[in-house]
Each structure stands twice: as structure tokens, then as C-alpha cells.
């Protein structure tokens, strides 16, 4: 790693001030950023650790019935504390990485990084969540802007994520066994006004909504409603773990499995 300083503010205001410095970088749980720093793929002068900010941690429900998760909330905490409110979201959190990773990694860190194979982007987009920052609220549909790219400005911090709770939902992940990231992961959520289907791990453009499947499932929420539907292999990630066509095939398979298992 190149040399840098670590600051540990205890309020969002202090963190924002610290991120105003030249070459400052926010540090969530560090489960992606620290390995990145070890490979010398990033060279910040200051890392602003967000783990000491109590006001952005925790799980609660707001007056609209949405599950609100602080941006600095660890995966293990979401797995436990969201279970009663939004089981599919808690299940997703309980299968990210491994237990030790879940004790450090945070939802805000995952969404800010927007790894094309991360799990949380599928939940946020599939639930039509709202990403709340220190300056504004961003709809998930506007937030994800391609692989490792989001609507966040420099120095903007995710303070909270608000998830409308669906009638039924399920996340199905086909795990890449070495990294435990999603080779393909599909989040399906059935709301009163329609079904949302978000796919992670598959596309070169990062997480995306499969609108054809959404239309079919909104009419008939059953795995059979997806018969004959497929996504094209063009634009899908192709690597040693699977070709674009293989991933495209998995998208349809995992969507069907998610619908069949939704609860």
C-alpha cells in the first residue's frame, strides 16, 4: 500500500469536512477498498473511515413502512435486524462474502462501490429503494450508472437506504465459489403495483432491470410466466468463470428460481 493517513470522524458533518481534503477517500468496512489499496490500485492521501459514525448505523422502519438502513450498517446487522421487516433483504445480507466479511462490510460501502457482481445493488434496484446521502435523496433507478459508477458526487456519503417492503421477494445467487460474489444474482420483488426484477453479476453495465420479465411477472407471478423469455448474451460479462451466453442463460434460470421461492 502507498502511505496515507486514516481519519475517524464521529459525525457525518466531520466526515464531509474531512472528505473535502485533496485526494481524500471514504472508507466503509474496507472489505473491497483495503484489498484494492494492497494492489496499489488506489492512492488516496487520506482515508476517512466511516465506521465510527453512530448516526448512520442501524435498522428501523419509517412512517411509510419502509425499512431504513443506515449507510454504515454492517451486513451481519442487516441479516439479523432486518429479518422481521424484510426477510429477502436479510437473507441476501446473510450470504454476502463470509461471516468475518459480514462483520465489517457495510451497505453504504457496497452501494457506493457498485461492483458489477455485488449483491446489494440488486436489492436496492429490485426494491426501488431510495439512496439517502448527506445532501439529497436518489432513486435507485437513477443511482446506478454502470460498472463501479454511481450518481454520487465526490465526497458525498450514503447515510441511509430506504427500502419499500414488497408483498413477496427473493434473491437467488449463483455463487462464484472462490470469491463468493454473484456469478449471476437475481432479486425479484412483487409489489402491489407491479414486479421488479434486478440482475447483478451478469452485465458489463453493472446491475440492471430485466423489464421483459417484470412485465410478464406483473401479469402472472409464476415461474411459468417466464417460459421463452431470455436476455441476449451480448454485453454480458465474459471471463474464465463463465461466458456471456452462460451468464445470460443463468439470468433466466435464477429469475425462475427466485419467483418459485419468493415469500
Amino acid at each position, binding site marked *: *500500500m*502507498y*502511505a*496515507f*493517513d*486514516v481519519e*475517524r470522524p464521529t459525525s457525518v458533518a466531520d466526515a464531509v469536512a474531512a472528505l473535502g481534503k485533496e485526494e481524500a477517500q471514504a*472508507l466503509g468496512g*474496507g*472489505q473491497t477498498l*483495503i*484489498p484494492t*489499496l*494492497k494492489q496499489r490500485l488506489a492512492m488516496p492521501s*487520506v*482515508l476517512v*473511515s466511516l*465506521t*465510527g459514525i453512530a448516526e448512520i448505523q442501524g435498522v428501523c422502519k419509517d412512517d411509510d413502512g419502509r425499512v431504513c438502513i443506515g449507510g454504515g450498517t454492517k451486513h*451481519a446487522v442487516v441479516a439479523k435486524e432486518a429479518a422481521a421487516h424484510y426477510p429477502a433483504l436479510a437473507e441476501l445480507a446473510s450470504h454476502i*462474502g*463470509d*461471516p*468475518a*466479511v459480514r*462483520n*465489517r462490510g457495510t451497505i453504504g460501502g457496497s452501494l457506493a462501490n457498485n461492483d458489477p457482481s455485488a449483491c446489494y445493488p440488486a436489492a436496492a434496484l429490485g426494491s426501488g429503494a431510495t439512496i439517502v446521502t448527506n445532501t439529497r435523496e436518489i432513486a435507485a433507478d437513477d443511482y446506478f450508472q454502470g460498472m463501479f459508477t454511481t450518481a454520487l458526487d465526490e465526497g458525498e456519503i450514503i447515510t441511509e437506504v430506504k427500502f419499500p417492503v414488497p408483498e413477496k421477494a427473493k434473491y437467488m445467487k449463483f455463487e462464484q465459489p*472462490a470469491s*463468493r460474489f454473484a456469478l449471476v444474482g437475481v432479486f425479484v420483488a412483487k409489489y402491489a403495483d407491479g414486479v421488479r426484477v434486478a440482475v447483478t453479476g451478469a452485465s458489463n453495465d453493472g446491475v440492471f432491470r430485466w423489464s421483459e420479465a417484470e412485465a410478464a411477472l406483473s401479469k402472472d407471478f409464476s415461474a411459468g410466466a417466464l417460459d421463452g423469455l431470455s436476455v441476449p448474451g451480448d454485453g454480458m460479462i465474459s471471463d474464465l468463470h463463465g461466458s456471456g451466453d452462460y451468464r445470460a442463460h443463468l439470468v433466466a434460470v435464477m429469475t425462475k428460481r427466485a419467483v418459485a421461492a419468493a415469500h
Partner: protein
Amino acid sequence: MAKVTMTVNGKSVSRDVEGRTLLVQFLREKLNLTGTHVGCDTSQCGACVVHVNGEAVKSCTMFAAEAEGAEVTTIEAVENDDGSLSVVQQAFQDHHGLQCGFCTPGMVMTATALLKENPKPSEAEIRDHLEGNICRCTGYHNIVKAIMAASGQDVSSVAAE
């Protein structure tokens, strides 16, 4: 350099560290607590697992500065107060849950955290919980058996060693 203060194995310690000093470097190089191992240094293998405020974390993927004010427990302090092996350590010995021993500190720390949260885990739960701990010797079988035994469960139905 900045001063970091934390409680390690019950004792308050302060040292000057660089921002980039990892918790595992702090433990091994500043405190000479070399029981915590560095296997892969990429947060895959789990040999470096320690407890921070009671939770199992990979100390190669956390900065020492982030543990400011925290309670850290390493493999050196899991033994019983009288110096005898903890239930988990004893079970690893009894059931031959190790061969070369390199992964063992991380395995014991992960298993200890699991049993605190889930005192009677099933075999499947144990295997699932060990996802982030890699052993290249044993094939995990005796590790799983040791953890089941440590939780007071009958392991006679688990295949022979």
C-alpha cells in the same frame, strides 16, 4: 504516524502506527502476538481472524487505526483463566482438527465466535460458517467434528477420523 490505543487480550496498549498499518501487523509486529497468522493477505483464508468487540473479523483487512478504542481478542487469550485449553481448543486436539496448524488460530477464533452466537450448530451450519476459513490439510472433516464436539453434541455418527 499517529497514536492508536486499544485493549488487546484485556490489556490497554498504545503504539504509534502508520495509517496503512493493518491490525494484523499491529498485533504481530508491534505487540509480538504472532499467534495470529497471515495466510493469503487478501481476506480469503481466515488465518488472521481475531475478535474485535466480540465479533470475528479478518485482521488483514482492517487498519489498526480503525480498532482505536476497541476490545481485541486474539488466539493467545482464548485459553481458560487457569491456562488450560478452552473447550474449542481441547476439541480440536481431541478430534485431530488440525495437521500443520497454520489455519488453526483463525479456525478456533471463528468457531469460538460461532458457538457464542449459535451454541448448538448443525453440521451444515458449521460448514457454512467456515466459508471464510481455508484449511489445506484436513479437508475440514475433523474441524467440523471438533466444533460439533465443542458444542456438546454427539459426534459418534460423524464418519471415522
